[in-house]
């Protein structure tokens, strides 16, 4: 084979490699951008509840942190055990960061007294403020669920939503994730990590 032909082969090989690398880089960039593009759904309204230790927890406590919020009740045998398991998996996965908090709000405040919530927290292995359990009169809980988090709250306590809500550092609702399915939980984990990287917009 002549050296000219060999040179041609080398050049065309390198060109193909360069074209593939360019294509891959473009696709990777698009994928990265699409992942960073998490829609802002709405601002959360003001509220003031208390946590299981009878300390106030309100809208201001969402600021500066990425929050995952759900509505549960401790007597529930249906969705809640799964939701608690998924939430505790996130609680452990992100234990290295104080920037991420988990908030479970009871939809059964008459039964779920602060003592009951404390016991529930302990039963789920909660040992710090990163996962809090909130208590408030039922009308306020319903209003926050429906108007703030856009999660249906009818026929309570059974009728609470099995979805987790993702809230950003500005207290804005960013998404809903069905806790009863595996794939949305994978997506939630990715979006939490994404929000950690997102500079305050």
């Amino acid at each position, binding site marked *: *084979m002549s050296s000219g032909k*060999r040179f041609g*082969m*080398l050049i065309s*090989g390198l060109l193909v490699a360069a074209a*593939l*690398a360019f294509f*891959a*880089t473009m*696709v*990777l960039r*698009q*994928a*990265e*951008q*699409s*992942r960073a593009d998490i829609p802002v759904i709405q601002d959360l309204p003001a509220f003031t509840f208390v946590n299981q230790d009878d300390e106030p927890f309100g809208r201001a406590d969402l600021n500066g942190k990425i929050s995952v919020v759900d509505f549960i009740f401790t007597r529930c045998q249906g969705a809640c055990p799964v939701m608690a398991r998924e939430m505790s998996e996130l609680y*452990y*996965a*992100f234990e*290295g*960061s104080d920037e991420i908090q988990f908030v479970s709000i009871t939809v059964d405040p008459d039964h779920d007294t602060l003592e009951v919530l404390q016991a529930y927290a302990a039963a789920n292995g909660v040992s710090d403020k990163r996962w809090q359990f909130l208590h408030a009169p039922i009308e306020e809980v319903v209003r926050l669920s429906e108007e703030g988090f856009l999660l249906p709250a009818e026929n309570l306590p059974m009728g609470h939503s099995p979805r987790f809500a993702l809230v950003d550092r500005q207290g804005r609702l960013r*998404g*809903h*994730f*069905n806790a009863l*399915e*595996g*794939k*949305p939980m*994978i*997506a*939630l*984990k*990715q*979006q*939490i*990590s994404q929000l*950690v990287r997102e500079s305050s917009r």
Partner: protein
Amino acid sequence: MKALIRFSYAATIATYVLIFTGGLVRVSGAGLGCPDWPKCFGRWLPPTSVDQLPAHIDPSLFNVTLAWIEYGNRMLGMVVGLLILITAILALVHVRHLRRIWMPAVASALLVAYTGWQGGQVVAAELKPLLVAAHLLLSFLIASLLTWQTQQLHYLTHPDTEQSSRYPKGVARFLTFAWALAILQSTLGTQLRAAVKTIQDAMPLGGHSMWLDAVGPIKHAHLMLGIILVAFTIVLSGKLLRSAERPSPLVQQSSVALLLLSVVMLLIGGMMAFASYLPIFQLIHLWGAALTMGLLLLLIGALRRQEGGSNVQR
């Protein structure tokens, strides 16, 4: 016969492209871009807006870019599957007397159908690391079968190839050994990747060094074997380039390509071991592995033909 050769070439090249796009799905994190299978969000073409999603699929899963990356790989997979199927049928029609050609053709057709279905299982199992690993290794196996078969077809129509070439003794055996090492190394690589993925899921906010610290001894095994394999292929291809008499263009070019690729694999592998899992590194690493195995096979096929003298096995 001409059609068979053309389809065989097309199927082989398309399979390597498919391994590239499959790797792209993996490293861009688009594996769950379509949460269902074979359709994408219940449609034969991915939806363009969230309003088109069926009620039973959680809207949080919708990302149109990732959906198209995943679906593109599936569509190319369909094309490749058809190309391989047609090749197998043509092989059965034209070369039924040549087992060394129709067997890999039929095997690759069966395997590609299985791999396509298995890709659906990967999605259903939420990208369980071991299933992803199996998907990749199956694709390597198919690419190897097709490479072998296409080369044999080429020799069928060019019987004089390699007959006047003289290669240093024993290299074919060492190349076969290198190929076996490459299979072992790829398997180790998929296991290392699976281990890293499991750790990344458990510590999503960790970084490269934190994840790698948590991975067991498999990372040392993969790195050591990688260095050995690269050294081995560099020595072998160097020997072929220096000592071969009247080497065929295929052997010459494959040796050069193997030499260059080995250096690239060493550099990229080193970057991944010590610096970063940048997606593009992962992709080059994965595709480089597929190409390395293909080049080793081409060289083995060529040298065996020459070493066996004029015996054209039936």
